[in-house]
Structure formats: C-alpha cells, structure tokens
C-alpha cells in the first residue's frame, strides 16, 4: 500500500467522519434544547390513535410498536396484491406486444406508452379522487356476481368463516411438498430411464385431493358470510358482514399494478425477443413440437432475461406503495412516519426505523436476486 493509494482514502474517511461528527453534535444539541431524548422507549407507549384499516387487532390502547406492525402489514398487503395483478397484466400485455395482430399489438403499445409516462402519484390521485368517486352509494350499488358490492365506500366481498383453518393450511403445505417430491422423482426417472411422468396431471390431482381430504377427514369446514346492507341513519348506509376493502386500498393497488405492469410487459417482450431466432429453428429441426419449443427452449432462456429486471420492478412497487400516504391509506409511512412522528416528535428514531425497514426489505430481495442470478447465469469457459 503506497502513499498515493492511502491518501485519498484517508481523506475521504476524514471528511465523512467530520460530517457525521458535525451532524451528531448538532443533533445532540438540538434535542437537548427541545427537551427530547434519544431512544426507542416510545415504542412501548400507548399509541392512542385509531387506524381505519388493519389486518391484526388494533385500537388506540395498543403500543406504537403494534401500530408499526399494522402499517408494515398494510404495506405488505398492498404490495402483494399489486405484484400479483401487475405480473398477470404484465405478462398478458407483454405477449400482446409480440402479437402479429396489428390491433392487439397497437392496443398494448398504447397502454404501455400511456401508463408509464404518467407519474404514479397522479395515477393514484386519478383513481382515488376522480374514478372511484364516480361509484354508486352503498344503497344504489348493483351486486357483482350477486354477492359483492363495489361502492364509493369500498368494495364489499363475502368472507369465508373457517373451522380448523390450520389443518387446511397444513394440507396445502403437504400438497406442495409432495408435488415437489413427485417432480424430483420424475426428473430422476427421466434421467435414468428416459421415461416421462405426467407431472402436471399428478400435481393437479394432488392439489385437489389433499385439501379435499382435509375437508372430509380433518373436520375442516367453511361457511360464506355475505355482506348485507344496513342502515346507519336516515341517509347513510353501509354493508355488514363479509370483508370490506377500503377505496384507498383499491385505488392504490389499481394504480400500482397498472403502472408496474407496463414495465413488466416491456421486460417480458425484451426477454422473448432476446432469445435468438436460431434457437427456435434449431429446436424445430430436432423435431420438438411448438409447445415443447416454448417450454424447453424459449422460456428457460427468456426467463433468464426477464426475471432480474422484474424482481427490480417488484422492489420498486413495494417502495412505491409508500405513496399511500398521499391518499391516506394507512401504510407504514402514513402511520409511522406520519401520525406517530407527529405525536412523539422523535423524528430521528422514527425516520431511521422506517428507512431501515424498507432497506431490509430491499436488501433481502436483492440478495435473493443475486443468488438466483448467479444460479442461472450461463457458465462460459
């Protein structure tokens, strides 16, 4: 290590230490002046504010930590919904972009160009303040499929009431594990004896049969609870029973999935186009059927191109779900960096916790992605 290499590093380090020292000194001084104390004790205190929509039991008497959990779960909920719909829509649109049909290709292209060139925040506002406000009041709502109601106050859907839900979940896990083993067995058999096993049919059979068995033998039981209209006052109605999805959630999930789907669609298109023409021709020349070409030749190569940027989009969607604060959907940012910060005044702690949460989420996903990337990367000599 010579001086030429050491000097710039030491200088950078020194500058950084000075900046951090300056900041923390000021922070200490400022907090003393305002009578604040640094620490995470406030997490245990009573939150004493209500949250409109929560997945776990929560009211004002719970702690700030519980409020944090509610926010985190709401963030995860809207992200998962968004990711599912964005993936489905993205694949459909991406395939449509590759269609030889002029009308389909153009429609998909217009959708992609339009939705990805408009700020996401604007789209969220549009759905929440303009589109969903045009929905009917609860008393005028027409039932969808006879059981659910899309109203200005939210989407009311029937809920399932379970008995022995845990056994049902175990049966699903068992089905997944057994499918996994069947797959392993089938691959081994193919490798050793060259005999193909109908894996798909067995998997479908298993995934129907095992949960069914849990109904018959395990005492699992489900009944449907329908939303029923109820009068609150002279002119105010709502629905009781079932599950209520608040309009904020719908607007947010809608905007997030429509926006992210455009990027996923472009990834899918790039991935399929990225597979060389020669690959398909070579596959066809050794006598594979079109379905086999798609399954065995095109898809594995296309996925290698598609998956890394798509994971990135999932990450973006999760981070973008923090825009929820703009329409008051109670997510992590709104509850914690908004309400809790106003009440406790512990700005440094709360903003750090919020950022660390997102950071942990992102870094976990990117580590997984790097691992996957290394696994599927082409090994060149």
């Amino acid at each position, binding site marked *: 290590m010579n001086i030429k290499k050491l000097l710039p590093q030491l200088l950078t380090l020194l500058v950084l230490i000075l900046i951090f020292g300056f*900041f923390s000194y*000021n922070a200490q001084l400022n907090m003393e002046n305002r009578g604040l104390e640094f620490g995470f004790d406030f997490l245990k205190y009573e939150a004493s504010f209500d949250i409109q929509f929560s997945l776990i039991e929560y009211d004002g008497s719970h702690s700030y930590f519980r409020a944090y959990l509610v926010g985190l779960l709401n963030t995860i909920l809207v992200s998962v919904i968004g990711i599912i719909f964005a993936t489905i829509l993205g694949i459909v649109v991406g395939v449509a972009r590759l269609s030889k049909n002029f009308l389909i290709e153009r429609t998909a292209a217009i959708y992609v160009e339009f939705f990805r060139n408009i*700020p996401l925040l604007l789209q969220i506002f549009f759905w929440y*303040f303009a589109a969903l406000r045009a929905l009917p009041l609860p008393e005028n709502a027409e039932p969808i499929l006879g059981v659910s109601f899309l109203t200005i106050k939210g989407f009311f859907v029937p809920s399932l009431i379970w008995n022995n839900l845990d056994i049902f979940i175990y049966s699903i896990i068992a089905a997944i594990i057994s499918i996994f083993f069947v797959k392993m067995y089938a691959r081994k058999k193919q490798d050793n004896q060259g005999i193909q096993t109908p894996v798909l049919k067995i998997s479908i059979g298993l995934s129907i049969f095992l949960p069914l068995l849990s109904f018959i033998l395990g005492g699992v039981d489900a009944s449907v609870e329908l939303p029923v209209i109820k009068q609150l006052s002279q002119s105010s109605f709502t629905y009781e029973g079932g599950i209520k999805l608040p309009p904020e959630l719908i607007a947010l999930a809608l905007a997030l999935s429509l926006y992210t789907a455009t990027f996923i669609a472009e990834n899918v298109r790039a991935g399929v186009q990225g597979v060389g023409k020669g690959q398909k021709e070579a596959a066809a020349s050794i006598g594979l059927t079109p379905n086999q070409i798609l399954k065995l030749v095109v898809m594995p190569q296309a996925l290698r191109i598609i998956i890394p940027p798509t994971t990135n989009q999932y990450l973006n969607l999760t981070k*973008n779900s923090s825009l929820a604060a703009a329409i008051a959907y109670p997510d992590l940012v709104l509850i914690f960096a908004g309400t809790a910060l106003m009440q406790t005044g512990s*700005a440094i702690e709360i903003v750090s916790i919020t950022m660390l949460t997102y950071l942990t989420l992102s870094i976990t996903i990117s580590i997984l992605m790097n691992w996957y990337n290394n696994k599927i990367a082409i090994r060149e000599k």
Partner: protein
Amino acid sequence: MNKLNFLTPDKNNLYPYLYTGTVLFLLSIIIVLSNSLFNLDLIYFLPGTISFFLPLVLGFIGLHLIRIEYSGIKLLEIINKKINTNNFNALLSLLILFVIIKSLPPLLNWFIIDANFSGDSKDACSGSGACWAYIKTWFNRFMYGMYPNEEQWRINLSFVSLAFLGVVGFFATDKFKKFLTLYYVVVYPIIAFFFILFFISGGPIFFDFSYGIIAAVISIILGFFIPSKFKMYYFIIVPITLYILLKYVFFYEELIELGKLESLEWVETGAWGGLSLTFIVSFFCLIFCFPVGLFLSLGRRSDLPIIKYISIGFIEFWRGVPLITVLFMSSVMFPMFLPQDMFIDKLVRVIIAISLFEAAYVAEVIRGGLQALPKGQYDAAKSLGMGYWKLHILVILPQALKLVIPGIANTFLALVKDTPLIFVVGLLEIVGMLNLAKTNPEWLGFAMEGYVFASLVFFIICYAMSKYSYNLEQKYKTDR
C-alpha cells in the same frame, strides 16, 4: 362453380366467400356502430344474451369467410395479415374493434362535443361533458403556482433564455465544438443556477446577480480590444474588480434602501409552484445527480477499499429506501442535524435530497456501462501509459456513457415523474396545485378534468423525452 365448403374458404370460390364474409363483417360493425353512435338497437327483437353476442358471432363468421390466402386482392391480403391470421386472432380483433367503437363516442362527447370551453365560473359548466373552463381559469396557477401574476414574466423570461442558451450548442461552429462538453457540464448549469436563484426569487440578492451580469458584459466587450497575450489575466482580474466596484462604489447599497433603485420583488420559494416548479426541480436534480452518480460509479469500481465500500454503502442505501421517506428525512430529520441558527431553504433541501437519491440510480446505470466494456480497453489504455483519470476521461467514459444512454434517459424520466412527490414537504407543483384547486369551494367536482389535463401534460413531456433519448441512442450507436 365448385362445391361450396363453408368451413374452409379457398381461392376457387373467392367471390361468394368474399361477398358473404364482407357483408357479415360489415353488418356486425354497423350493429355496434349504430348502437353506440345513435343509441339505436337494430336487433331489439332478439332476447338479451343473443343480441349481446350476435355482432360477435356475425363478425367472427365474416372474418372466417374472408380468410382466403393468395386472393390477389391487396386490401384483403393486408386485412388478413394484420388482424385476421387465425380464428383466435379474429375474435380478439373483433373484441378490440367493438370496444373502440363503443367507447369512442362517449369519450369524444366528454372531451369535445359536450364540453364547456368558455366561462369563468362554475355555472358555465352545466353540460355533461368536461369543464375546460375550469382549466382555463386555473391555468395560471397550474403553471406558476402561487407566484404573483404580475411577476410571472420573470419565470417565462428565465425559461426562454435558458432554453436559448441550451440550444446554442447546436449552432456551434467547428472552432467551438471542442468546448461544448465543458459548456454543457460546467458553464451552463452554473448560469442556470444563478439565473433561477437570483432572477426568479428576486429580492435584494438580485442586485448581486445584476452586477455580475453587467460586469461580465462590460468585460466581454472590452475583452475584444485586449491583446490575446493578456487575455487570461484580463478575464480573471477585470470582471471581479468591476463587480466589486459596481457593488460597493457605484451603486452603494444605501441607494437601494433609499428607494432610488427598485429591486425585483422578493418571491419566496414557498410561493413557487405549478409546472414551472416541476421544471426547476427536475432540471436541477438532473444537473446535480449526473456528476455525483458518475463519481459514485467510479468509486464502486475503484480498487481503493475504503472508497469502494463507502460508495457501495451510499448507493445501496439510497436505492433501498422509497423517495417519500427521503423527503420526510429532508423535511423533519435534516433540520435536527444543522446548527440552530442555520437554515436551508425547503426547495434547496428537496433538490439535494432528490439529487442524491437519483444519483444512486444513475451510478448503477453507469456501472452497467463500465462493466460492459471489454477489459482490453483498460489494458490498451494502460499500456499507453495513461493514468487513472486520463484513462477514464479519454477512453473508458466516452464508450461507457454511449452504451448507457437509454438507461440514463430512463432514470431522468423517473426523476421527472418523481417530482410531484415534493408535496410531502409542502411544495406544490402541478399535481399539488390540482389537489389544491380541487378543494376550492367555488370549483368543487372537477377533479377529473384536472387530472386528465395534468396527465396529458406529463405524457407529452415524458413521451417527448423518451423519443429524444431513442434518437440519441440511434445517433451514437457504434458497431463494436
């Protein structure tokens, strides 16, 4: 005449198929068209479900019948190739056609035919269409925010002159071409920064700016008469002397206080807003994030461990958090880190925060370009005896940046689309102004018009940017 087989139309019986198919197809279109345009149900006598599916079935059979290969009719070939390759495609095409026909008239009605264009109050908008009078009345606010009406020429003038200074580079003669990079990377941002800082915000600080301009203009004019031998010293000494003279001797500050000199009215940054703020924020972030990102990407690939890990930590941190929390940090957490009497303007804080945030993304994009270069480029440059900086500036960066034009353009697009988020700290650009206007009691109920307007504005800006970047990419594409 050969035997007709309706399941497999062929060329031998071209015309019977063609005529029946065309008639059926047109019939289905006419049914839907009359329904959507004139609200006329031509097949009212049929029961509900059948009348719903009839156009689809008719059109499907029609398209099936006209799917004839090698017919020799140009139009037919085009139709078959574009929308009618097989049954499934034909069905999808029909569905899309019907949806377009069904939805176009209501959309046109809302946008143009039933819309109100004139008037300056809510009463003017009684029709069922859009109320563009609302946009017209609020147009100034959407563009300039709360900036005082009579001062808005300052924003216009700044943007026009900055745009002019920006396109000057395209007309540069060969003699000046080599200075273009220096101009765009260093000179232009500095000019723009001072222009906006002093001219748009105005106030006493504006005088500093105007002295500077006067000093610069005078020294440039005088500079023509100075022998080139002394030019360098001249341009270092004279402008500064002139500036000091102007500021402290000729226009002594008391004159301002006495009111003999009128300054530009001070407009605080809180009043800036609308689309102009979108431009200001994205412009500055764009200028600042690029160099920072460049250095971060170089740092990440450096072999000095401390610099490398600091860069990695920095990049991964900013990429891992949502922008909204960064803005929260800049508004509630950052003031805690400053000495009590020190105050940094909200807008400046936001610009710094967004720049650092986007710089991390720019860094990753540039790193992609650096990684894509073959190692031979480094080796070749090193074998010529180039040092680190020379190697990067002359050999590596020109090639790497060329490779990442689309990626950088995408990052800049994301930046423009992220600007509305500054509502978090209370700055209202166009989307924020829309939300403000929406809650005005005299103009309730026009949220849709506002959002449609803003969407169109952003769409035009972003679409133009992406097309421009595509052109740039094509222009600088070199075969390797």
